């Protein structure tokens, strides 16, 4: 509800996301053609920690390097 602590928290996360967008869109790294654009989306009121805890839950696995064994397999 309006003025609640939760709303204040969400507003703070939203403001922090705008700071991130400034960095991510910085011209030093985004001068290339078709470079990615970052901005407000449905995750902008989440903290990075919340975002990781909810959406980034894939466990890493080490796999053998691919070796092209034969032309037949590639075909």
């Amino acid at each position: 509800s309006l003025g609640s602590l939760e709303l204040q928290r969400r507003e703070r996360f939203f403001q922090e996301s705008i700071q991130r967008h400034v960095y991510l869109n910085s011209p030093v790294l985004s001068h290339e053609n078709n470079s990615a654009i970052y901005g407000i989306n449905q995750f902008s009121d989440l903290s990075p920690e919340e975002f990781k805890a909810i959406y980034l839950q894939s466990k890493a696995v080490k796999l053998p390097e691919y070796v092209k064994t034969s032309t037949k397999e590639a075909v």
Partner: protein
Amino acid sequence: LPARFDWRDKKFVTPVRNQLSCGGCWAFSIVGGIESAYAIKGNLLEELSVQQVIDCSYEDHGCNGGSTISALHWLNKTRVKLARASEYKFKAQTGICHYFPSSDFGVSIRDYKAYNFSGAEEQMMMQLINLGPLAVTVDAVSWQDYLGGIIQHHCSSGEANHAVLITGFDTTGDIPYWIVQNSWGTTWGIDGYVYIKIGENVCGIADTVSAALV
């Protein structure tokens, strides 16, 4: 290799889904790959049950996380038949594993391939064409703020935390890129998709690559 290739053009890719607040990206990516592989084999393109994988892949942790490789290992070892999504609906939380009579419809896998393609993304493009869409893991921390364009920076290899499905690639422009389906709904990114630069293992996209054979 063609300059551009996308399994969506052949109608072999199911629509973008939304995992909501369930950390089941690993299940979404492999089920998406199985759906496409099944259709490429000449069958009807059908949405299969992600919830079944979330509930039943016992080496994983349902909506609290999992791995594409352990889920494929489970599917391959048990030959479990994936039910239709309409018959085993997504609930965005881990539930009890449901079993179906063996006579019921379902899609099982007969094997799977899983490799590290870092430094060999051209070979990976060939595998995409040969095997169908590829389930991959990525570092997606910066994706919280992604709106569109080709990701070339702001993520690392070797720090995977998210799983997605590569459906194609495009090398016709200045920057070649992978066409990647995410599971955060169609309002995220480019109608639910994200483009990632090819050739430098951006976001670790080539580190953990897998495809099911049906």
